[in-house]
């Protein structure tokens, strides 16, 4: 089936790739011969997959993720594995065990994260499209910071089989590309039912983007333009929403009160899930060798302390703490109620509007090393995590610049209406290009 070969020898000056495939096999089809990069937490048979962690250095998956199989069937040439924050834990791609990815627009700044390698590979023209994963904004944030398009699909629309899990109830694999058409095409390849993912739904994506948004009702959540959002970023996004109005959409102001505690609910949930998911990395079935002469407790501790970066260890510990006896009710149980409240807020608003629009990130890309304190880094995810808590689709599309750096317009939609957020983004993109 993979009868042809694509030669791929990029000048990777931004450290976007962890692995490149010099002679990438490919077949014919929708993506016949198109260079596609894959984030390094998605399993690729025969190609090293590390999650940007020392604990998986040298790991060669014996099977393909479902989406990778679909890519191969579509004729795509898988040209490499992209850099990321270790296990997806970060907002800058600085938490990679193999060095940070740089932002192609300004190499003194981060590309965003955690899918920063995928975004930089597209922004610098090394590939046309790439797969990312989005647990709390990890596709949309780097898309915004690097000036490309990224879609976080509705939870359940794309199979997670073969995705090395960090926080199962939040994460989705999604398409990233230079423009909305490419993102939509890649979404068409990867979406659909897979029995090997018990949260998979039979919702294939066969859409062709339409720029007609006449009569579309757009909600503008006031929290997306409030405290903590750079006024210059808010200004650029407000202008972009103005363009959507000129194209025939109507806007209405709204509010998401649960955003007050959405970020805390997100971090409690993802760290709890991480503490369980990452228990499997013990140097026995894969990864650096555990000393089989020692007791399992000492052997695992040694491997995990040496193999995990500091942010990964922090999140495992936070999750272990939040789930520990006496604290479950205070943290995890409350976070799940908060999550329900976020869902209810979105459901209420979506009974009156078709999509919501606001900035993807509260600022432009940070300077390298700027967010050294973990909490200050977490706080920058405030505009992206509500979407993951609710499981709804959202896209980030470039909408202008502040201080020379790209700004992303985020459009969020009802569950299973990925097509509608794609159309809104496409309408904007066509109007300004």
């Amino acid at each position: 089936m993979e009868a042809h070969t694509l030669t791929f020898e990029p000048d990777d000056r931004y450290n976007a790739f962890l692995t490149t495939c010099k002679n990438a096999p490919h077949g014919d089809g929708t993506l016949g011969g198109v260079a596609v990069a894959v984030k390094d937490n998605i399993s690729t048979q025969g190609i090293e997959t590390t999650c940007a962690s020392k604990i998986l250095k040298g790991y060669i998956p014996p099977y393909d993720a479902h989406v990778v199989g679909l890519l191969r069937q579509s004729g795509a040439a898988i040209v490499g594995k992209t850099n990321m924050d270790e296990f997806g834990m970060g907002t800058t791609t600085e938490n990679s065990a193999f060095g940070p990815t740089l932002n192609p627009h300004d190499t003194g700044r981060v590309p965003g994260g955690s899918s920063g390698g995928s975004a930089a590979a597209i922004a610098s023209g090394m590939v046309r499209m790439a797969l990312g994963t989005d647990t709390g904004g990890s596709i949309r944030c780097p898309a915004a910071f690097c000036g490309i398009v990224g879609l976080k699909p509705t939870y359940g629309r794309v199979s997670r089989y073969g995705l090395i899990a960090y926080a199962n109830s939040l994460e989705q694999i999604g398409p990233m590309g230079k423009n909305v058409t490419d993102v939509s095409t890649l979404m068409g390849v990867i979406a659909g039912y897979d029995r090997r993912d018990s949260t998979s739904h039979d919702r294939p994506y066969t859409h062709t983007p339409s720029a007609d948004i006449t009569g579309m009702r757009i909600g503008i959540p006031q929290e997306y333009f409030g405290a903590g959002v750079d006024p210059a970023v808010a200004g650029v996004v407000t202008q972009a929403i103005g363009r959507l109005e000129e194209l025939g959409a109507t806007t209405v102001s709204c509010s998401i009160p649960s955003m007050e505690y959405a970020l805390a609910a997100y971090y409690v949930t993802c760290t709890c899930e991480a503490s369980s998911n990452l228990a499997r990395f013990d140097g026995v079935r894969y990864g650096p060798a555990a000393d089989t002469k020692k007791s399992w407790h000492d052997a695992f501790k040694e491997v995990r302390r040496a193999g995990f970066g500091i942010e990964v260890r922090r999140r495992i510990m936070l999750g272990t703490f939040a789930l520990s006896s006496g604290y479950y009710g205070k943290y995890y149980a409350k976070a799940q109620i908060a999550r329900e409240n976020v869902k209810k807020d979105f459901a209420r608003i979506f009974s009156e509007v078709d999509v919501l629009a606001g900035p993807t990130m509260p600022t432009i890309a940070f300077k390298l090393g700027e967010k050294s304190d973990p909490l200050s880094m977490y706080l920058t995810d405030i505009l992206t995590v509500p979407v993951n808590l609710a499981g709804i689709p959202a896209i980030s599309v470039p909408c202008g610049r502040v201080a020379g750096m790209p700004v992303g317009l985020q459009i969020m939609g009802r569950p299973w209406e990925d097509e509608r957020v794609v159309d809104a983004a496409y309408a904007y993109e066509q109007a300004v290009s």
Partner: protein
Amino acid sequence: MATEQEVHHIAELADVGINTEELGTFTHQFNAILDYFDVLDRVQGDTAGIRDLCNVMREDIPEPSLPREAVLQNAAATEDGFIKAPRVM
């Protein structure tokens, strides 16, 4: 507030290891994050929506799995077709 002893205990439970130099910084950052999590104390509501969810299981029928060599290829230590692990007892 988590004490250094509690943070050390959590690191032991999670098998991630922690040394004395790290413990102070870890505890400080841990507490800043836990302070932020206190906003959850104000959450009101219920999880009725979650209770409506159901598990998706396949039938308990054996299916073909990966060949043994493929499963063993990434293990650091194997013996007689099995994976070697640290001693449990």
